[in-house]
């Protein structure tokens, strides 16, 4: 009997045992949907991570006060706009970064630009609304060379700016009700003019001297120093970091490596740490999804055993009227394959929807928080990457699972003696 006829009979069995089939199918849908969602979200996260770090600049090294937990004093630690962190760099016990540190670094080779920044939080008001914002004070001469942010309108800061600011578009349009170029806003009571709007984000940038005036008058401190290097190959980067460490240690009077009171970020290290964290999370979640698939497969096997038992008499009839053993085998094998297939298609669709939901949840939660670790982590999951081959592969895989789960029941069905089967009540 040709496959097509087995398919017809197998389909007939499926549609006539709706409740039982659907309960089994739901098990597969859940397993497959989890796999699809996890793989799509983590693939999207990897891509987002690469592009975020790309935006951050593989050629930008950041120095922050306070030793990091990583060995050797290098590693990454929070700062205003670094990939991971959100840890406030200024504590009363850490020795701050000052202009002396900045000058010391100038002597290091492979450096293109140096940007000192201070960060603080203040109250911003526009029309009748006010909100707490993160403000970063930057050196106007250098900021536009180092920043990886892009403008959607207006311009970056220049040396002649004093009470001018550049703000992120999310702040302008979502947090506030539409701040446009040349609008006047207040920050900590002082009036500022918006001269530029960035394409994304909630940041506020102002000239560093003005920031000092508003937040920390008389201070000479920097909350972070960003350094753009010319050669960003791994070797050159590491060499530059080593040199900077030496220079700073000397300047700050630190004799031993283990006593350093500052941190230097290494972009490559950040990427690999985050990447491996993502991998670990994915593997863990993937294992859970795999377990649920195994349970789903057991569900199919159970359904098939029951189905064969119930249809014992019918198998006897079919054999009496000419069905060979392999006809019976193919009918039940295809039946269980179909259960897998329907589950796979449903699961793939549900997985796509679920990953879309998760990414939009992450997007809405990251737009309402201001900068910080949660923001960046959340923003990693704001995009999902659906690979059509994944979907096809997953459906094919679930057909295989279905057939594998149904193999033994189908085999037993094919071996039934027609006489005994006909006697079955």
């Amino acid at each position, binding site marked *: *009997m040709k496959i097509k006829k087995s398919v017809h009979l197998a389909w*007939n069995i499926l549609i*006539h045992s709706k409740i039982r089939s659907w309960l089994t199918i739901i098990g597969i849908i859940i397993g497959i949907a989890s796999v699809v969602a996890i793989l799509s979200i983590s693939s999207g996260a990897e891509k987002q991570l690469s592009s975020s770090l790309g935006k951050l600049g593989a050629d930008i090294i950041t120095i922050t006060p306070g030793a990091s937990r990583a060995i050797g004093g290098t590693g990454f630690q929070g700062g205003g706009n670094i990939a991971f962190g959100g840890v406030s760099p200024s504590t009363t016990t850490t020795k701050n970064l000052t202009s002396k540190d900045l000058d010391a670094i100038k002597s290091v080779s492979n450096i293109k630009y140096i940007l000192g920044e201070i960060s603080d939080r203040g109250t911003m008001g526009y029309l009748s609304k006010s909100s707490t914002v993160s403000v970063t004070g930057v050196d106007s001469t250098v900021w536009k060379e180092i920043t990886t942010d892009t403008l959607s309108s207006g311009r970056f800061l220049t040396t002649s700016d004093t009470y001018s600011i550049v703000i992120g578009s999310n702040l302008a349009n979502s947090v506030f009700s539409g701040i446009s170029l040349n609008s006047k806003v207040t920050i900590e009571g002082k009036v500022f003019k918006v001269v530029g709007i960035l394409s994304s984000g909630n940041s506020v940038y102002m000239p560093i001297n003005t920031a000092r005036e508003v937040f920390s008058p008389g201070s000479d401190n920097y909350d972070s120093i960003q350094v753009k290097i010319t050669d960003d190959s791994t070797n050159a980067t590491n060499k530059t970091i080593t040199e900077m460490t030496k220079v700073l240690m000397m300047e700050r009077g630190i004799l031993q490596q283990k006593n350093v009171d500052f941190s230097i970020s290494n972009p490559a290290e950040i990427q690999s740490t985050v990447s491996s964290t993502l991998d670990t999370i994915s593997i863990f979640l993937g294992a859970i999804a795999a377990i649920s698939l195994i349970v789903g497969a057991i569900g199919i096997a159970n359904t098939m055993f029951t189905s064969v038992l119930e249809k014992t008499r019918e198998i006897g*009839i079919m054999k009496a*009227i*000419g069905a*060979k*053993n392999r006809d019976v085998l193919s009918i039940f094998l295809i039946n269980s394959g179909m259960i897998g297939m329907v589950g796979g298609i449903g699961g793939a669709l549900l997985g796509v929807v679920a990953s879309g939901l998760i990414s939009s949840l992450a997007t809405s939660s990251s737009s309402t928080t201001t900068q910080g670790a949660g923001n960046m982590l959340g923003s990693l999951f704001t995009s999902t990457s659906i690979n059509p081959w994944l979907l096809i592969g997953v459906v094919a895989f679930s057909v295989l699972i279905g057939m594998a789960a149904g193999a033994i029941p189908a085999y037993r069905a094919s071996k039934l003696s027609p*006489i005994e089967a006909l006697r079955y009540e």
Partner: protein
Amino acid sequence: MTTIIELRDVWKIYNEGEENQVIALNNINLHVKKGDFIAIMGPSGSGKSTAMNLVGSLDIPTRGKIFLDQHNISHLSESDLAQVRGRRIGFIFQQFNLIPNLTAKENVMLPMMFQGVDEIKREQKAETLLKMIELGNRMDHYPSELSGGQQQRVAIARALANDPEVILADEPTGNLDTHTGQIVMKFLNELNDKGKTIIIVTHDPNLATEHAKKIYWIKDGQIEKVTEKLKGKWKTLKK
């Protein structure tokens, strides 16, 4: 007249050699010629069902030989037997045994599917047969929507699907009222008149003597006697 089915010195023994050995059939000989209308008659436990299974190629003998159209089928595998009986023997059961999830038409098409007949031919044949048994307007009904008599008629149509030489009916009227049973037997008689070989298995001697032309009387696994209707009168043949 050619012998279609022959059982030669056939034994059927279950659990041979063991303590719980059962001899279901003891040295049976049976000849079915083309165009015969044969009844295998016996009380419950006589071995008539076992004999029917062997005649219908549903089972193979422990000893002895079975010939279907002069081919020895005594040692065929189950799959080969299935192929042979699917082509040559049409079954009718006491409990109708239609597939509940298939319509009447699909039930009739089923034996043809197992023989590789293509779809259009299957459909046409099924429709012709269903009209012949006067169920042309119920083709798309499921067995649960048909009366017992209608289901048995569908079963007859199904038995005829592959144009088998032999129709084997196991207590065909057992689950039917007298009137419907007579209609079913009328169909079988008509088929026999057209040249089909009919074998019925029954415990009802009236059914046998009324419709069959030759009766194998079976008791305790052995053929007690064979009677044949010659010129309207029943005569006992040698065993």
